[in-house]
């Protein structure tokens, strides 16, 4: 089934032959959600936690961390710390992604149901929905008001922050909820050790949480009926680029990239490469067409699925795209760690010079070195993302890079590619 979201010019669809688990009809109405099987009673949280483990549910926020491991860590640390807190992270800082906002705007009860189940598994009575999108905040507030502000003994507060690339990072969420700026803190401690008000805190992406009601109803065996053994289940992928309108799909892990891109409506012959994992995982050349869409296959290519955002490059020059993304990092980093605000500025300067045909071999040598030595030097992953972009450009598109050293790129000469936020699906709605 394919539908169009008029408000965002977004195509919504689930891979043929699969019943959607997440991209179902909007359920902003409590009664409709309950009629569809939502808010099932949970008798034994430990049994559900066991099911989460057996299902192999991986976090959908970008790191693909096993949720069961995180849940256990928070629960166990909570025994020592005197309590736990759960946070539904819907602050979608990634410009090329729309999935979290779509879920919050259209399926708030699914997210709250998942939040309730997570809270029970870690033994928490305090929860937060952390967002920046005003429509998402309204939707979740509306759903909460139907529930009387909380449920199952769980108090839920909505925290709205200004949008930003770094605002969705888990320590930024904790810091903002604690009353600080929505900027990351250095680790340790991580939120599962010490988070909101000093309690062990589960910060979980809203899509991850949205899988829990399905697991409760259907169990891990059904959950694993889709996907691969190492990347089980279905997931939400935001596709942009290729001259098409953005699309939000629910697909099983393990599809062929070529099939996915054809379904999206782009002829694979036209594909020059992709921007993987939103702005996080860098560029891949046409080698991506021989891969499958799952964590293990994409990792083998030295890249990552991240939060499930893939942008298709057709006519664009990869150097120009890299320069735009790098300039974005230069502008949008938290401005906290010296290695990051200096490193992103320096790498942005080189990629921009390369796009403009004025970079030298010495500049490239520096860029290559920075892409290695700056990795891991920031408190959050922004600097790593910039390193990924630099390294992948040099490795995946060496001939294109060499042409730019000679100022011999027809695409860049003919037109200036200066997108401030390449492949942005939709600006975050703020009030």
């Amino acid at each position, binding site marked *: 089934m394919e539908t169009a979201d008029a408000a965002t010019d977004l195509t919504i669809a689930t891979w043929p032959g699969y019943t959607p688990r997440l991209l179902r009809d909007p359920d902003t109405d409590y009664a409709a959600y309950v009629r569809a099987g939502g808010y099932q009673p949970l008798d034994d949280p430990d049994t559900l936690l066991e099911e989460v483990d057996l299902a192999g549910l991986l976090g959908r926020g970008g790191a693909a961390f096993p949720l069961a491991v995180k849940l256990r860590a928070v629960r166990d640390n909570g025994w020592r710390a005197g309590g736990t807190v759960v946070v539904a992270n819907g602050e979608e800082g990634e410009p090329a992604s729309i999935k979290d906002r779509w879920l919050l705007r259209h399926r708030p009860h699914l997210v709250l149901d998942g939040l309730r189940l997570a809270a029970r598994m870690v033994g928490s009575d305090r929860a937060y929905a952390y967002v920046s999108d005003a429509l998402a905040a309204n939707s979740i507030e509306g759903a909460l008001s139907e529930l009387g502000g909380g449920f199952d003994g769980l108090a839920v507060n909505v925290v709205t922050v200004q949008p930003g690339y770094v605002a969705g990072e888990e320590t930024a969420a904790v810091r903002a909820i604690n009353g600080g700026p929505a900027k*990351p803190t250095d680790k340790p401690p991580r939120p599962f050790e010490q988070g909101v008000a000093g309690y062990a805190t589960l910060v979980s992406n809203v899509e991850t949480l949205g899988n829990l009601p399905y697991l409760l109803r259907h169990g891990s065996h059904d959950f694993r009926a889709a996907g691969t053994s190492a990347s089980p289940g279905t997931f939400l992928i935001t596709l942009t680029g290729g001259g098409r309108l953005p699309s939000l799909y629910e697909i099983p892990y393990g599809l062929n990239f070529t099939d996915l891109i054809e379904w999206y409506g782009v002829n694979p012959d036209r594909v020059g490469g992709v921007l993987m994992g939103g702005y996080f995982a860098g560029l891949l050349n046409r080698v991506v067409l021989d891969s499958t869409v799952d964590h293990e296959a994409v990792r083998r290519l030295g890249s990552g699925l991240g939060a499930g955002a893939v942008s298709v490059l057709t006519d664009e020059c990869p150097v120009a795209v890299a320069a735009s993304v790098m300039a974005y990092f230069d502008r949008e980093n938290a401005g906290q760690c010296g290695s990051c605000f200096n490193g992103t500025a320096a790498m942005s300067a080189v990629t921009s010079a390369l796009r403009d045909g004025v970079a030298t071999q010495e500049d490239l040598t520096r860029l290559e070195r920075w892409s290695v030595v700056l990795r891991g030097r920031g408190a959050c992953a922004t600097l790593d993302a910039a390193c990924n972009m630099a390294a992948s450009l040099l490795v995946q598109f060496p001939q294109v890079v060499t042409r730019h050293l000679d100022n011999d790129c027809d695409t860049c000469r003919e037109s200036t590619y200066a997108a401030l936020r390449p492949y942005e699906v939709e600006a975050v709605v703020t009030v």
Partner: protein
Amino acid sequence: MRIRLDRTVCDGFGVCTKHAPGYFSLDDWGYASLIGDGTVLEKDHDAVTRAIMDCPVHAILTLGEYRPPDAPPHPEEVEEPELKTEDNEAEWGFVR
């Protein structure tokens, strides 16, 4: 002893690498990162302590042995501390 470096605080003075070069590395702009997991060998205790004491922005912190903390109170239960108005040097010097 275990230490951590808060890179959001580091201002690139580089004093740490002068005292304990085996524990800190500087980038091209002089900003530090911790080498290793922060575990300090007994023989390096003095040098690292010197780095901690001499860091002008106090970006290096020691991590105590883990002790189960008392349950922190809910924020709603925390009473606002009363503002000190006497014997406050800063207030005396700059406000009054």
